[in-house]
């Protein structure tokens, strides 16, 4: 039986800019605020929806009307009741203004209505296959209408003291040191949460984070908080468990942006040569401790409609050289932008550079910091650039944005930065999104994967595995496909 009480010490990296999840959706914010705010649904490791603020839901036969029944007796942390009005406000007013990713999905919604206090109805313009996949806390967090309505959201002072419906309440934030969340005594779900408090420790240096775990200061190292080289050593410690679960919903997929517009990378043979030249197994084994998988194409194997019936690209330098010769590559040097997210990525870029140079491609690494990287990628000022993106469980949510030509626009590093344009792919993705039956979608997506893998608009690297390291006496830490990011609701310490 779960033990009540206790404190969880968790590393948070980097320090979030704020905790108002409706406003800021970056990783660290979500990791902390996922315990304060809640969405209507959560998803299990196989991405099946689970109830959260919504008790149950129904979908009309044509797939255009989604009706959610909300839980009774839910209150905000300040005691106000949570109702369907909050949902309508959150989605239609607040998030529509502040949440770029959700806004993209909301184009399919015709209107949102609240027939009664505990019912919300989403009416879509046409069917949208992945619609049930956008109700998790990071994508659609519920924010309190009574606090935000009629105010300037960005400057509302309440942003500093977030009020949600979640199992933990915000208590204090000592900038540069820690964030403290305490148990929500009035949580609507009987007996939850088990923990009394969660301390999020801000430790900016990766090596120090490892030390913090070793010395017992922290008990939980969420994925990505220590360098991969340290994972093996840490997991060998006593009473230490490791899991790469809890990332299924995000399914982080890494690739190299290839500038399809100009230079050698505009030639598909060159792009293929890159695929053959790279030793991705090596990267996985050496740089990622064997965690994760070599990506076969645009879809992560974790998400729906994944297909492995595509052209494989094994490590084959000879083939790469052949392709280069065939296209008549003249040795023009190409620029490679590493991801400025720490040593692993830096080393990876060096390894890729080495791989490419072995088949005769001249590579020049271009180092920048985060801001510079964003700017360069967003302005298409690169030849090759590392990146990784979440796929959010469904190709229509997390995959198509990278490949459809309507998404070619300067200024954002998250759209179709490669400049790949194929009417066929555009059409297939459009069909896939609005097709309602899974079977139909499957067909479309299998076709699109085949086509993309042959066109190589980007060079896929790995499905990243982020290991969460924790003390074995922390139980029930990861129960959903969202993992640490949606809460310590079920966790307890033995």
């Amino acid at each position: 039986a779960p033990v009540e009480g206790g404190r969880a010490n968790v590393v948070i990296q980097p320090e979030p800019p704020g905790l108002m999840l409706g406003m800021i959706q970056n990783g660290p914010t979500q990791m902390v605020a996922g315990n304060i705010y809640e969405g209507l649904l959560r998803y299990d490791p196989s991405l099946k929806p689970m109830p959260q603020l919504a008790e149950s839901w129904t979908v009309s036969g044509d797939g255009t009307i989604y009706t959610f029944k909300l839980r009774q007796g839910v209150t905000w942390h300040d005691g106000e009741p949570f109702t369907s009005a909050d949902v309508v406000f959150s989605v239609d007013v607040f998030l529509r203004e502040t949440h770029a990713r959700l806004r993209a999905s909301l184009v399919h919604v015709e209107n949102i209505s609240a027939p009664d206090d505990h019912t919300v109805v989403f009416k879509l313009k046409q069917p949208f296959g992945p619609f049930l996949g956008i109700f998790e806390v990071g994508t659609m967090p519920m924010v309190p209408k009574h606090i935000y309505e009629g105010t300037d959201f960005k400057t509302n002072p309440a942003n500093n003291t977030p009020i949600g419906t979640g199992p933990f309440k915000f208590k204090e934030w000592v900038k540069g040191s820690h964030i403290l969340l305490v148990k929500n005594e009035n949580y609507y779900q009987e007996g939850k949460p088990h923990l009394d408090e969660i301390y999020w420790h801000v430790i900016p240096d990766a090596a120090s984070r490892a030390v913090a775990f070793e010395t017992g200061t922290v008990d939980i190292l969420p994925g990505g908080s220590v360098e991969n080289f340290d994972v093996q050593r840490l997991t060998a410690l006593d009473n230490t468990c490791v899991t790469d679960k809890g990332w299924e919903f995000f399914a982080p997929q890494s690739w190299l942006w290839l500038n399809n517009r100009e230079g050698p990378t505009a030639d598909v043979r060159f792009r293929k040569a890159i695929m053959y030249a790279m030793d991705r197994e090596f990267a996985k084994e050496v740089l990622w401790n064997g965690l994760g998988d070599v990506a076969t194409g645009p879809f992560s194997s974790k998400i729906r409609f994944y297909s492995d019936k595509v052209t494989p690209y094994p490590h084959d330098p000879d083939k790469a050289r052949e392709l280069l010769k065939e296209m008549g590559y003249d040795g023009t040097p190409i620029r490679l932008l590493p991801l400025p997210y720490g040593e692993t990525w830096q080393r990876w870029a060096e390894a890729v550079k080495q791989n490419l140079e072995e088949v005769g491609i001249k590579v020049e690494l271009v180092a920048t910091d985060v801001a510079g990287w964003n700017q360069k990628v967003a302005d298409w000022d690169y030849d090759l650039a590392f990146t990784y993106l979440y796929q959010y469980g469904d190709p229509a949510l997390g995959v198509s944005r990278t490949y459809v030509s309507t998404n070619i626009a300067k200024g954002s590093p998250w759209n179709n930065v490669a400049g790949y344009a194929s009417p066929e792919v555009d059409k297939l993705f459009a069909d896939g999104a609005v097709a309602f039956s899974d079977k139909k979608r499957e067909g479309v997506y299998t076709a699109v994967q085949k086509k993309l893998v042959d066109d190589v608009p980007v060079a896929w690297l790995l499905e990243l595995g982020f290991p969460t390291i924790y003390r074995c006496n922390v139980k029930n830490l990861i129960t959903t496909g969202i993992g640490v990011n949606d809460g310590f609701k079920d966790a307890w310490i033995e």
Partner: protein
Amino acid sequence: MALARFLIGRLFKAALVLLAVLVLNFFLIHAAPGDPAAVMAGEAGAADQIFLDQLRERFGLNLPLHEQLWIYISGVVQLDFGFSYRQQMPVLDLILDRLPATLLLTGTAFVISLIMGVAAGAVAAMRRGRWSDTAITTAALIFYATPLYWVALMAVLLFSVTLGWLPGFGMETVGGNYTGLDRWLDVAEHLVLPALTLGLFFMAVYTRMTRASMLEVSRLDFVKTARAKGLKPGVIQRRHVLRNAILPIVTLAGLQAGQMVGGAILTETVFAWPGIGRLMFEALLQRDYNLLLGVFFISAAMVILFNLVTDLVYRIADPRIEAAG
């Protein structure tokens, strides 16, 4: 009075320098690639033009640069350092929040390095040519030439992980909820490693400098006079040699003191010390212009202040010095 005139003159010039510093920093920072909106968009994992435009408009980044500068400068003149784009808090609050931690760390390191460095240098000078001199000089050179973060990590490994004597990071036990004396002890415990690490480098510099300076002074005639008085070597070294050798060290100490605000980026990072060096570094990476300018401003003010203090100390330490502009 002369002193008052000196001070007023210096303060006036200081204000001008600060203003110039501000303007130059402003352009410098804006010259770096990327802007806060791009960074935030990048972090959000999704962004579209609306999102970026919203951010830029909110931060006033859509205005021409000179207008932004004007807005900023007019704010600063009224001691309003603006809002941090990223943290959505007044810059001044953020800085004041972090300043004490940094001052505690750098101040302690400063005092440690000064005292220990001067002492070690003095010992080395007095034992010139003997093994203790060689040991001290070599150690100083090693500390000087070893990367700070390497020393830091080694110290943590030894004292924190292996021996378990001292906490390896943070400023106090998080969630310890100590009060009063206990809290001070707790903080002191956390302070030891970072302060030592940071102090080592400067200690090395002071050691070398003190030694060289003392040897230089030992050759001066008045030291011979002191010996002719039949004074003991200890007294001679302390009262005559060291006192005269200390002046160049005052200059150096002034420089170090001025760098106290921003000089500890790496140490604060490795030891998770919630100080201003980290704040600045993060602001830099996030192109949080207002915050960065604010930190630069405070740092500049400190440097100028300590240059002034150095000059004053100089005038007290050396009666020969008359007001030097």
